[in-house]
């Protein structure tokens, strides 16, 4: 084993207090970035969760729709125009909108109604833990997520409440369908949804278009664009990007999360740079000795980079542990912090890059070192 590793490790560990400060700085920084990025990822998934769980090949949306939650309406006649095109097998209407859920204890809370014709495979609730899709066909039946029981003042399956003065009964319960707006999703049938959100019978929010197996998406999209005057035709990917763009960047929420993550990176870089710089300064005579006995600049740089890497690995290992605890602790919350293997790898690389950047201040200091100081110190 080269002495570089041993020298680096012992230089770092020699001053334990400073090493602990460095590691704490890295942990603080990476945990902050993890939380911000985890929230961003969670937010990113939540804003597109309805689109992700819709079996659509194309979406017909009102002109200028910004996101899935946009309450603009499109005329029901567009459906028949769409169905006139060869290759389109279904154009399933979807009605969404905000409504007030009256709590059994009095008072109301806003909910977000999502509905489609569940019998023919539209946008249906998923992850059902109680009840079935068939149960939603019953008048007044709704499906809610178990994480919102408290918010909706309900005890679950069979519980009653009111939406817009109409009695509803929880006929199905889902798990993990959470809204980033913290407004609970309520799944129901189309007719009921119209009544709850006040959508006229000849209007819908979207059409979820399904194509025949061999149909060409682009060809059909072009044909749809030609015959639909007041709506747009989007692929699921385009609709997803539009929703993401609106919520993450149009509202500033994403920018705030990014700013937090950036702040974490800057704080971490500064802390590591400061400690590496002062560590190098303390060992300047040793580096000058190395230079005097003939080491190349690169050898010394390798010692500093190795110190940075060791700090990165130690700091990241602890930060990953703390991150996992946070991920577990928030798993059932309204806005869980998500962590994916790719994000873990990305955070590790970020830690390494951060420590490398921090090492540059120390390297710049060493570049200027005069080996002749060994005769004066």
């Amino acid at each position, binding site marked *: *084993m*080269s*002495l*570089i590793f*041993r*020298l680096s490790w*012992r*230089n770092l560990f*020699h001053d334990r207090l400073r090493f602990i400060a460095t590691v704490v700085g890295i942990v603080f920084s990476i945990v902050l970035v993890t939380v911000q990025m985890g929230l961003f990822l969670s937010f990113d998934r939540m804003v597109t969760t309805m689109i992700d769980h819709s079996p659509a090949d194309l979406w017909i949306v009102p002109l200028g729709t910004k996101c899935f939650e946009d309450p603009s309406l499109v005329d029901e006649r567009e459906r028949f125009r769409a169905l006139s095109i060869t290759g389109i097998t279904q154009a399933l209407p979807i009605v969404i909108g905000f409504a007030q859920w009256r709590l059994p204890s009095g008072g109301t809370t806003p909910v977000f109604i999502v509905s489609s014709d569940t019998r023919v495979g539209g946008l249906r609730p998923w992850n059902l833990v109680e009840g079935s899709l068939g149960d939603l066909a019953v008048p007044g039946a709704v499906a809610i997520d178990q994480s919102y029981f408290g918010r909706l003042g309900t005890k679950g399956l069979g519980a009653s409440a009111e939406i817009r003065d109409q009695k509803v009964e929880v006929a199905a319960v889902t798990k993990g369908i959470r809204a980033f707006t913290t407004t609970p999703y309520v799944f129901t049938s189309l007719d009921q949804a119209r009544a709850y959100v006040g959508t006229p019978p000849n209007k819908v929010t979207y059409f979820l278009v399904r194509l025949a197996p061999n149909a060409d998406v682009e060809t059909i999209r072009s044909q749809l664009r030609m015959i639909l005057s007041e709506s747009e035709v989007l692929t699921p990917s385009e609709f997803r990007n539009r929703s993401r763009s609106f919520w993450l960047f149009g509202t500033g929420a994403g920018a705030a999360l990014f700013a937090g993550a950036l702040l974490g990176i800057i704080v971490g870089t500064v802390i590591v740079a400061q400690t590496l710089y002062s560590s190098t300064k303390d060992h300047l*005579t*040793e580096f000058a*000795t*190395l*230079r*005097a*006995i*003939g*080491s*190349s*600049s690169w*050898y010394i740089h390798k010692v500093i980079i190795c110190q940075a890497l060791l700090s990165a690995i130690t700091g990241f290992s602890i930060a990953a542990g703390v991150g996992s605890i946070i991920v577990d602790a928030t798993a059932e919350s309204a806005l869980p912090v998500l962590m994916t293997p790719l994000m873990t790898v990305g955070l590790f690389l970020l830690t390494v890059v951060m420590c490398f950047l921090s090492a540059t201040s120390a390297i710049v200091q060493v570049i200027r070192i005069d*080996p*002749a100081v*060994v*005769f004066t*110190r």
Partner: protein
Amino acid sequence: MTETVMEAVDVVKVLGRGPSQVKALSGVNLALAGGELTLLIGPSGSGKTTLLSILGCILSPTRGIVRICGQSTAQMPPEDMARIRREHVGFIFQSYHLFPTLTAADNVRLALDVRGEPSGSAIARARKALAAVGLSHKMKSFPRALSWGEQQRVAIARAIVGNASAILADEPTSALDSDNGQAIMKLLAEIAKDQARAVLVVTHDPRILPFADRIVRIEDGRIVGEERGRAGRQ
């Protein structure tokens, strides 16, 4: 006749700039031959250490030529100077400059590690060098656990482990008591018996004069005298 290992020809060194400029060396000529222990003596500020630094390729002369094993260092970039140092020069410093976080064996091995020598052979050579300076039993000791004399021996082992053509020692006995100083000088005299290796010791310690093959006196940046030492006359 032994070969010249290291040579300074008409070397001038100006230190500093502007009004604080000082001419540290004024046309110095000095050649060090293999198998010879040369003492460079002179009062403080006479240019001893500056000359040592220039011969050891740590400083470049303002004017003049330095040759190490026949190779001129004129116009050499810093990285090439570092290469010359690691290939041909072994340094012994007044304050030892051992790495406090490394063991004696690792401190010696460092001189080989910077050359890129594989660990296995570097460890073996470091052990041999420490044995040569009588510290076989202190291989795993850290500098803080060694006496000053032992620390200087480790520094000598570090200087000789790479078979340097020239060993340059800056006041190697000044921080040591008489017994340790004598022991260190005996060691350096032993090292200087190698015909391929020159040893230059900068000092103002009169107690070590008997160990010299040759004594060179420097004052105000000029060589003012040279004589054969007692060891050289034997």
